[in-house]
């Protein structure tokens, strides 16, 4: 019981980036525990996924050829059977939307303690130490799980992708899927957030967050976008509130953007948002809270009240600030 089993993430024919990061996280644990690194890939084109997963350090890859797309009932059954067969000390899964949909059920069924959204893992003397954030990234905590076997999900982008070419043994794992226990049926997929504007094309984005406080105040940033020729985008709460359309949303569940300049106004910089804009050429942040995580990735910072700074900026470019 020193082995590690990581579970690959894929969607609509593509292995998702976090799959290779899982191999890195799992490889570190396998080294620390002195065990083997196993990877499981369930549904879809498992043979081609297995080839992509065969990186340095991977000992065995288990393919479950059942169905095309993710179904949590199939995943739970397959992983329960794999865990019974391999008895891995660690099961490591992604904290992706699909991970959220099966990992807690797998851990519950296997009666393993579960810790989600790890940003760091450390294993020594039988204790797994998980580093995770709380209170919207304001603090980090370490959570110890004293006794295995363990189940943990990792945050995307925190581990480097596994590299090199491995010589893993690829084997098909037969799961006798109980179809009666598959009680949800995926009917299809839909791309959302089309429409009049594509924020991922913009050179200059003025992006607005919770700090704008009220819908009426949007006029202020609309004016700024107008006088500077910028395109308006936003963080999630603005779209959740229905103040801007979904196609304006930057972040994990919205668009990935890489403009020359990203001007974040009243955006704290939650990890889901940062995932969608960190690759911008230049990031400028305006926020009242000097400790806001957005400043950690900003090139330029303005600690101040947007209701003072934005009107002054509009005037700088010869505009007349609206009274809000």
């Amino acid at each position, binding site marked *: 019981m020193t082995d590690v089993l990581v579970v690959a993430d894929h969607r609509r024919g593509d292995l998702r980036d976090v799959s290779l990061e899982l191999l890195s996280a799992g490889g570190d644990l396998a080294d620390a525990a002195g065990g083997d690194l196993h990877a499981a890939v369930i549904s879809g084109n498992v043979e081609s996924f297995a080839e992509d997963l065969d990186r340095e350090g991977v000992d065995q890859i288990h393919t479950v050829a059942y169905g095309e797309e993710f179904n949590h009932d199939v995943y739970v059954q397959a992983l329960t059977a794999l865990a019974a067969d391999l008895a891995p000390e660690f099961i490591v899964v992604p904290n992706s939307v699909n991970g959220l949909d099966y990992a807690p059920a797998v851990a519950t*069924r296997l009666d393993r303690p579960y810790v989600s959204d790890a940003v760091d893992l450390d294993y020594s003397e039988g204790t797994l130490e998980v580093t995770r954030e709380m209170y919207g990234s304001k603090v980090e905590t370490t959570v110890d799980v004293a006794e295995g076997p363990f189940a943990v999900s990792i945050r995307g982008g925190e581990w480097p992708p596994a590299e090199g070419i491995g010589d893993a043994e690829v084997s098909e794992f037969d799961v006798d899927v109980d179809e009666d226990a598959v009680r949800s049926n995926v009917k299809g997929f839909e791309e959302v957030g089309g429409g009049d504007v594509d924020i991922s094309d913009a050179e200059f984005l003025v992006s607005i967050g919770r700090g704008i406080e009220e819908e009426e105040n949007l006029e202020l940033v609309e004016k700024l976008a107008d006088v500077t020729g910028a395109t308006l985008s936003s963080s999630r709460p603005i779209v959740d509130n229905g103040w801007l359309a979904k196609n304006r949303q930057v972040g994990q569940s919205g668009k990935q953007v890489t403009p020359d300049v990203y001007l974040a106004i009243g955006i704290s910089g939650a990890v889901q948002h940062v995932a969608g804009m960190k690759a911008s050429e230049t990031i400028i942040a305006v926020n009242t809270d000097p400790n806001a995580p957005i400043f950690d990735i900003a090139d330029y910072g303005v600690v101040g009240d947007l209701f003072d700074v934005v009107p002054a900026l509009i005037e700088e470019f010869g505009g007349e600030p609206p009274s809000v």
Partner: protein
Amino acid sequence: MKVLVTVKEVATVEDDFEISGTEIEETYLDYDLNEWDDYAVEEAVQLAEAGDDVEVVAVTIGPERSEETIRMALAKGADRAVRVWDDAIADVELLDVETKARLLGAVVEAENPDLVFSGVQANDDSFGATGVALAETVGFEWAAVVNALDTEKVVDESVASVRRELEGGIEELTDVELPAVLAIQTGINEPRYASLRGIRQAQSKPLDVQSLADLGVGAEDVASSLDVTAMYEPETESEAQYLDGDASEQAGKLADVLREKGVVGE
């Protein structure tokens, strides 16, 4: 039809705060209804409004202070509430989803709902596991990160036709058999504000407090496997160049940066 909504009172932290041991000092905390649960409550109330004879029961695990939060769910339209608490829980690390799933599972077994709505995650610990672990504990089907539910179909055909919000602007369309737990994502609806009348009515709606003994759960069943050993402010790696001065000086420097980057002409 009966809908159970799990709600959590969460702590929010002020901009400046201090940590003592493995907790943030109480004076820097404010308490509120978890944002995701606000959407879950609204979805349940909308379902009740769409169908005949739909009962909405809000359930929370929390000390007496959390009654303020669960009364908020009642004020927004839930019919009655259950608060689970016990001296034996007060000492337990409630980060452990297994503990929460067992407690909520006992309530589900007593109430026997058709649907359970649960927020995807909580503002404070962002664990994101309660709903799915609860479903597995009680043998319900489930769907996580639901941002649309066809309420008419639930009422008429007893199937939850949902959209799951995947990464990158993709939605998955899925039919889920009942009974089921749906982990609700923000943005699925527009949560209402409690009306004054609602707040008044909430005061007289039933709120049962259930102990471990009431739920038939043993103290050994709620022991936590997780132990928070440290809490600290993450090291900031900011390499930002700060633009100082009063607002108009800051705006002037910011305008210079924008001109220099060539994204704004004169």
